[in-house]
């Protein structure tokens, strides 16, 4: 059974908490304000924007009350032949010391800033090409809305952030242009590589765009399939830690079929696809290579250990068989318990005696109010 209502509750239970979501917005807003007000940094800032799982609506809440990671990318005008990645990052340290003293740290190629409920993960870019500066300052890039809340998001100069639309008299015309005209063509941004001695390509906007398109091809269920499977791994399979985060999301993107009508259907078919599609790799002790959206030279699974992938595949095999039973079952209680086996206690327990079979006619206790008791 699809148990739509139960899955709605489950998704509500695993999404980042109210506190995490509101601090994500307020934390980002404050950071943005402070960056733009900083006399030393402002001259070479272009803009900053939300990337990562929050922006793509694929974030799940961390276990054990840990802080939720919020990925922010800061686009600068720093030229690569003047600054290597380390030098560029050092420029930001006085700012961090001033505003986030005791709460920030250098973590390889990014900075981490600890707030109460979220941890901002700040990554710095080098200068993009002149012709793309307008793009990076546009509302389409800088909006804090994710691709589900802003379901008409397109990378277009006329696209307006949700908050702007009520104020403007020309919203309708601008949104009309944004929805019908072609999107901007964009190049990758350049951020520090893992060793922070070279600039390397990344394309968060393309990742966001790809996710948006996949989501609309799957009736809005793709991002929920991602969240559910992230949770499945967190709850059932703490080992191995990887794949997680974007690599896991990428795998699901490779395997989730289009046209799915429910999250339940998406889950069972994705897990089955993982098993079938990657079986050849398992047989040869290898792993697939999956290119990053917008950066064809990167293999998202490049750093994933072959043994970990193997273990993951076997977990998927087990999971797919449970999911198939849960999906095919026509008994409410049985189906509910099977799904719960995959997802743990955040998935609601089925009601007792809730098998929907032959309860018979119950005598009404009061006269029926016509309609639901409201009148117009």
């Amino acid at each position: 059974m699809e148990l739509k209502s139960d899955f709605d509750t489950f998704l509500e239970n695993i999404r980042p908490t109210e506190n995490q979501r509101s601090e994500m917005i307020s934390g980002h807003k404050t950071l943005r304000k402070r960056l733009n007000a900083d006399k030393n940094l402002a001259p070479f800032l272009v803009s900053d924007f939300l990337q990562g799982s929050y922006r793509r609506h694929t974030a799940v809440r961390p276990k054990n009350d840990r802080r939720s990671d919020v990925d922010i990318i800061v686009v600068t005008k720093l030229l690569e032949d003047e600054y290597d990645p380390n030098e560029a990052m050092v420029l930001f340290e006085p700012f961090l010391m001033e505003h986030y003293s005791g709460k920030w740290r250098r973590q390889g190629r990014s900075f981490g800033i600890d707030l109460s409920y979220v941890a901002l993960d700040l990554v710095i870019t080098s200068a993009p090409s002149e012709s793309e500066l307008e793009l990076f300052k546009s509302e389409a890039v800088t909006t804090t809305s994710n691709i589900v809340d802003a379901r008409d998001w397109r990378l277009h100069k006329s696209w307006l952030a949700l908050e702007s639309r009520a104020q403007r008299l020309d919203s309708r015309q601008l949104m009309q242009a944004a929805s019908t005209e072609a999107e901007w063509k964009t190049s990758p941004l350049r951020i520090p590589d893992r060793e922070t001695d070279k600039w390397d390509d990344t394309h968060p906007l393309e990742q966001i765009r790809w996710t948006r398109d996949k989501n609309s091809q799957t009736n809005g269920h793709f991002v929920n399939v991602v969240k559910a499977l992230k949770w499945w791994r967190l709850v059932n399979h703490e080992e191995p830690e990887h794949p997680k985060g974007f690599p896991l999301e990428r795998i699901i993107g490779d395997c989730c079929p289009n046209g799915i009508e429910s999250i339940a259907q998406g889950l069972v078919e994705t897990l089955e696809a993982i098993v079938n599609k990657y079986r050849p790799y398992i047989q040869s002790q290898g792993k697939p290579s999956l290119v990053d959206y917008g950066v064809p030279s990167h293999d998202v699974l490049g750093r994933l250990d072959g043994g970990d992938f193997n273990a993951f595949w076997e977990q998927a095999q087990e999971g797919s068989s449970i999911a198939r039973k849960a999906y095919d079952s026509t008994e409410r209680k049985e189906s509910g318990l099977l799904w719960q086996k995959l997802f743990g206690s955040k998935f609601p327990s089925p009601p007792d005696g809730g098998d929907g079979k032959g309860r018979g006619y119950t005598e009404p206790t009061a006269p029926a109010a016509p309609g639901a008791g409201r009148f117009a």
Partner: protein
Amino acid sequence: MDTSGKKPSESLRTGIKVAASLENVSLASHPFHIEGKASWAVPVTVRMRSTSEYVPTESKWIILVEETYPFGDIEFFPATAGGMEATFPHQEQNGSGPDGRAWRNGKLCLDNPIERLSVVSGPHDPVGNADERLCWYVRRAQEWLRLAVEGSLMSPGDPFELPWCGAKIDKWRLVHDESSRTFPTWAKMKKSAWGVIVLGDLPEFNNATCVVAFEDNNGTQIRIGPRYQANKHASDISDRKLGFWLFFPQPPILAPWHFPRTWGELRSAGKLQKADIDQVFKVIAGRVRGEEAYLVLLGYPIPLKCGESACEVHWQGLELPALKAGGKPPQGFRPNETGWWMRDRRSTLGDDKEIKYVKTENWSSERLLARGGLSEGLKSLRIALLGCGALGSTIAELLVRGGAQSLLLLDNDKLAAGNLVRHTLTGADIGREKANALADRLRSVNPHVVIRAETGDVPVGKKELEELLEEYGAVLDCTAVADVPQLLSHAWWSVPRLFLSASTGFKAMRTFAFLCFGNTFDVSGFLDRINPWLDKEREHWSEQGETLEGPGCWSPLFPARFDDVFLAAVTCVKSLEEYVANRKTDSELLVYEQSLVDGRFAGLRRIDEPKDTGCENENARNES
């Protein structure tokens, strides 16, 4: 002595005696009775200390006093013999009266509240006081004359009064919608100009003739009114109903404040502004010869207060008589357009011919709503009303009469006789689709509103619903159907809009107005807030039992009287207006409940929590 044998009453004789004793005023001859008006004509002579071009040292006046003095009307007219001939501000057009009548037409406006007149005579007409009353009027007339000499009958700061026109022709029911909003189009014109007006009908308003567009002589639109339809009134359609406009940058008057009564006077007034009336009408005559009468609008800018800059154009219609084609031209002219024009110039449009002014009204929405309309923010929203039942139809009535400009009406039902107890539609609409009938009704109460009516259910398909409501800035759910809030929450619109889900509870004692703003309807916010109230409502149902239409009907009705539904509708409109005015975007449920104090109706109270409702209300209502 009046030959009729009648004598003025004791009161009037006293009144005349007191008035005639005023300085500079004397009775010119004996009062005489005017049979047809049940009045006495009192001839007086007024002497002025200072004079002007139009005000002589001595002038003769006829005061018409009704027999019921010191009650009834008192009117001041210049006498035909020895009376002033000019028209001033605050005076009716002062032409000569019919042959043989003792007074001219130019009645003085003495009872309008011109404060400066009150300085002399006191602010209030002492009706009923025989000694004082006629005297009061005479003093005011003297003051009027003094101001006329000074030229300050219209003083800076006074409300601007139009020069008197006295239009009589009613048959066109001519209306237009000029306002300060449309003024910029005309403000640019520094010289007299003329062009074409396109006319339309207002079938819901007794077929009033309305001006739907102004064009210049090249067919270029200068401005269009709200009833303009491109497919009916565009300049390239040959069967448009047309007329003409003639604009003057200043009021076309003859000093001091005389609006042209005849064609000759119009020519003179035009000449003062370097406007050649004949040149204009010659061309017009060429276009309309052989056809029926045409409308011509004379227009000029007017201010709100004297001394201020003009803010609006005032239009006064006139009927251009049908001009004959063919026939004999005057001596020395050929039988062609020039010849026939010369004939018309001397006869139909001769200098001494009275202009046939047409009653013209300004029906701009500013004027129609002058007595009170909705806020600008609410009026300008395009509103989609889902559900045209008791509550929906009443809300729609309040919105449209209040000036709402654009509405969508959707309903799936037809009007039945049992609905009349609580609906704005009437018996003539029974059997008609509610949405269509309501659209017709609402168009008849506001000439500016644009209404689209759709019959059917609220679309279940997301895309269909999104398309239907795309253009609307406010969506009002007056269906009281549980599905509709859900359907609205499945749809999503790029441009955020306001939602109101309006309904009442049992017997419309409570009103539930849920408001939210965004790209979609906040259904979880709605259900969270309304469900506790619906639980409370269930108590009333279980106590009361079912309401049925009559024997043979099994399906239960929802009892609610019109007065209670009306209160609910008013509450919803006010809540909507406040929400818009305060630019709110948070979801909120406003609950209003009828309250009783000492068993008497005490209005509606806003209640925040279900537990706050008064016990007295519930007991009393359940008993009724």
